[in-house]
């Protein structure tokens, strides 16, 4: 079998893995999004304990490898009778990890909004909460798009680490196939190509989104 026949042969199975990779990415980036916003707001506007917790969380998750975080969830927790499926542990690990990074991006975006706008909103009688919801977040979410796009692509790539806890994603499929036909290098070449294409498609799509929601004068970082 030459390389192209091989590719044709294994592509269906790899695409199945790709779907799992995309699911894993989508779920964890969403989890990270919600937690990330909460952490950023907590860090900026929370009282002392909340703010301290948020920055501790962010530092810890950014300072330690994803692999170790996944191992803690997948191999560590069962010691205390908490058993997660590899898929759930993968989402949780990737999501909790991404939350820390997203929180930093959101924080940067929020801080780039002038304090005066916050003051102006309070001056027309908006509560703090309403100001955050109507003035701060709508701007921050636009400003954050470029760095958020990077984070999405990062998560897409790092979802491959979930292979190490046996989540049935693209890498795992690749390894599975290679273990049968012993053509490791070629199989992973195809895997690499799929990632390459996925990353390109996602970044193009995000560029389009960025253009769509662009507002004159609202500078997007980077």
């Amino acid at each position, binding site marked *: 079998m030459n390389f192209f026949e091989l590719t044709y042969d294994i592509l269906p199975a790899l695409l199945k893995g790709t779907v799992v990779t995309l699911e894993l990415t989508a779920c964890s980036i969403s989890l990270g999004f919600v937690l990330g916003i909460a952490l950023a707001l907590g860090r900026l506007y929370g009282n002392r304990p909340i703010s301290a917790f948020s920055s501790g969380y962010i530092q*810890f998750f950014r*300072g*330690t490898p994803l692999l*170790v975080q996944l191992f803690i969830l997948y191999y560590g927790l069962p010691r205390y009778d908490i058993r997660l499926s590899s898929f759930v542990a993968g989402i949780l690990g990737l999501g909790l990890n991404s939350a820390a990074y997203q929180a930093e991006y959101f924080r940067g975006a929020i801080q780039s909004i002038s304090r005066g706008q916050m003051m102006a909103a309070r001056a027309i009688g908006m509560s703090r909460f309403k100001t955050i919801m109507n003035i701060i977040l709508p701007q921050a979410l636009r400003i954050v798009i470029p760095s958020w796009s990077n984070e999405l692509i990062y998560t897409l790539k790092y979802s491959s680490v979930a*292979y*190490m806890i046996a989540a049935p994603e693209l890498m795992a499929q690749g390894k599975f196939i290679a273990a049968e036909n012993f053509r490791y290098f070629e199989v992973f070449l195809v895997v690499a190509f799929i*990632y390459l294409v996925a*990353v390109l498609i996602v970044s193009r799509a995000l560029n389009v989104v960025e253009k769509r929601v662009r507002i004159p004068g609202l500078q997007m970082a980077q």
Partner: protein
Amino acid sequence: MVTLELTFLLLVVGLAVGILLALGQVYGGKGLVLLSSTYEQIFRSIPALVLLFLFFFGSSFVGLNISAFLSAVLALGFRSSAYQSQIFRGAIQSISQGQMIAARSLGMSKFQAIRHIILPQALRLSLPPWSNEYSSVVKDTSLAYAVGVIELVREGRYIIVRTFEPMIIYITIAVIYFILTYAGNRSLGYLEEKLKIPGFETKSRKE
């Protein structure tokens, strides 16, 4: 400790190749620019783990017999070089064209100007993002586990087999990584402070 050794080698490979790439992209001809940006795109788009496997299995595929450790150094080192090149390129480009012209007008060759005028500034500007890259590299060394390198996580695994305390061991490992990234970032921050020149971007050196 293998993790430290790996980190050091990855940073060195990444730095050397990264600077060359950045210079190639900024000062090189069309072909060089295309080559280095394709290199960058590829190494930044393929997950680290996949790169590891490609180098690990690829070396024997082409008949080379290199250790898992060396394939990890090459895979992750080249990957880091793609990220570092982006950092340096950004820094070099942020230094005004006028400085290059000024240096050349003093009779410096292009190489001398890069060496004595552009790089000293660019490297200073690169320090903060480079410190992020340092953290990434430290953490990514853990992926070498996947090809059997006996680094921190695998050492931990061996201990767990004996003690059956996965949680405690993994948390300890996490703390060790945390200390490595934290200490590194701290030192780099200190270095940045040390090397700081007030408003250096606007001043050109006198000869």
